[in-house]
């Protein structure tokens, strides 16, 4: 039990490794609770999902009587029309939400970076959407978009921009953009907080030096501020992308995936397959595919984070 022995080389065979593990046995006690919880709630579900994805589970059949069907579930998914519809929805949803939320959040962080009267109040107001529950947010916006009594429709009619209130979430062409607006409303504050934290680490001397050298505001931002924020930006964008890819509540509560699947994204579709139509096998196969895609995200996530680690170690 040594505090910070420093990294020793990892050469040597199994025996030294085992000895090292034994020497550090007390250290594991600290992480054991965390790891145990993680194992129960993560490792087992992943194993079970992969197993179930190779079985057919007709409705009305007990789950333990499932029928082995090999990769049929996968081929059925990839050849179905709805798969491609849902995938394109998910891509639009994830890319648009992530990009716009990040840009808006970053811009807010920059605009709030300089001290002025009322800054704290503005910051507090801007953060609120991120804090309130997505269920509450969904209901608020559902009411705002309401096709008869919604306030946006009413404003458009009052100003003569529309004859009658438009259908925002009951129309195939507008439902996805309308939901993305809600999602961005809830997520840009997260990007703002992360980037505000990042901005505080940009050294003032560098900015002043650049100013003395005659750099204008844009050049100072692009050549000094932004390079300092590259790591934070990567982590923020990845976290946003993953959260968007995995979002469920907003489409589920506001539209349930409708009208005619126009707002179904992967997660809502999987949920409906599993809990709506009891097709656990297909839903599990979907989950495994999703899992593989997320592993790709995960690879970049770990790389971004371990970029932090390396710098940390050398500092």
């Amino acid at each position, binding site marked *: 039990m040594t505090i910070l022995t420093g990294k020793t080389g990892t050469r040597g065979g199994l025996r030294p490794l085992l000895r090292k593990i034994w020497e550090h046995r007390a250290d594991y006690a600290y992480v054991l609770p965390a790891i145990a919880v993680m194992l129960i709630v993560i490792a087992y579900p*992943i*194993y079970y*999902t992969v197993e179930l994805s190779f079985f057919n589970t007709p409705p009305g059949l007990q789950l333990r009587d499932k029928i082995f069907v090999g990769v049929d579930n996968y081929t059925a998914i990839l050849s179905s029309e709805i798969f491609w519809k849902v995938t394109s929805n998910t891509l639009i949803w994830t890319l648009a939400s992530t990009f716009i939320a990040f840009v808006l959040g970053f811009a807010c962080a920059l605009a709030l970076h300089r001290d002025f009267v009322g800054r704290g109040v503005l910051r507090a107001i801007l*953060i609120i959407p991120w*804090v309130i529950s997505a269920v509450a947010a969904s209901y608020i916006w559902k009411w705002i978009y309401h096709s008869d009594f919604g306030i946006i429709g009413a404003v458009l009619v009052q100003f003569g921009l529309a004859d009658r209130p438009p259908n925002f979430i009951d129309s195939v062409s507008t439902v996805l953009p309308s939901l993305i607006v809600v999602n961005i409303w809830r997520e840009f504050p997260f990007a703002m*907080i992360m980037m505000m934290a990042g901005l*505080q680490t940009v050294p003032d001397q560098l900015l002043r030096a650049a100013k003395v050298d005659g750099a204008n505001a844009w050049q100072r931002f692009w050549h000094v501020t932004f390079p300092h924020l590259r790591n934070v930006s990567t982590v923020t964008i990845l976290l946003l992308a993953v959260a968007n890819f995995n979002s*469920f509540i907003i489409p589920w509560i506001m539209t349930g995936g409708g009208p005619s699947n126009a707002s179904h994204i992967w997660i809502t579709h999987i*949920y409906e397959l599993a809990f709506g139509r009891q097709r656990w096998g297909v839903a599990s196969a979907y989950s495994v595919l999703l899992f593989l895609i997320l592993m790709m995200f995960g690879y970049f996530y770990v790389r971004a984070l371990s970029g932090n680690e390396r710098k940390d170690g050398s500092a």
Partner: protein
Amino acid sequence: MSTTAETAARGQPRRRMRVDGWRWGGRIFLVFMVLYTALPMIWMLLTSIKSGFAAMQFPPQWWPDQPTLASYQKLLDPQNSVGQDFLRFFWNSLFVSTATTMLSVIVAVPAAYAFSRFTFPGRNFLFFAVLLRNMFPAVIFLVPLFILMRAIGLVNTHGSLILTYLTFGLPLAIWLLKGFYDNIPVQLEQAARIDGATRFQAFILIVMPLSAPGIIATAIYSFIGAWNEYIYAYTFLSKNEQLTLPVGIQRFFSENTTDFPGLMAASFIMSVPVVVLFLVLQRYFVRALTEGAVKH
């Protein structure tokens, strides 16, 4: 907004000859963002103090003609059935969130400390394995977890929620706290141990107080996450008296689809605790993110 601008200009000692386009752009942008953020919430509040009849009008009453607190009275009155349900959902949410918060601090603090201080084989692997939890959506875990919870007899109990909520709060908690411990000089602990403290005493008396902002931030994050969680609560709980607020409200208003003032009042009441908590403690949260996660 104009007073803000004047004060900002006065605070600036250097005289500006030309209009600073970037700053004006920033101000206009901020006004736009504040409207985007605040107007939906203002409309929620205005709707919640209308009667059901007044809410269903076209063109709408921009300002309620006869403001009424009837929706709030209905929701918060323990005498009628609606109020009874709503208050029960509220306490359920409070219980689950508080238990989750306390447990995640208890589990995350030692884990983060170990990841920061000790070098044991597999340390990096375990650290990233914990972080990877954030990558996976709840839906993947729903079915197997439901079966697991049934096997260990936790279905339809709040325990099932607390156990699952723990795991999605933990990764960020451990990550944040590890950053904090990395920044606390190890010499402080060594000095304490030379003075005769045990490692545990050094941890409790030296390290814990220094990492208090991180622990507060972790606690806020867990609490808000648990308070707002929907999918697991929606799937794991079926008994009406156990529902938490998000699910309870959804169940309740899928039966009364036209009671928008009631729905807005419920959304407002549901948002109050987390918003107040966050606004009171937000400086810790931003500081923890800066020191724990970003500054490396």
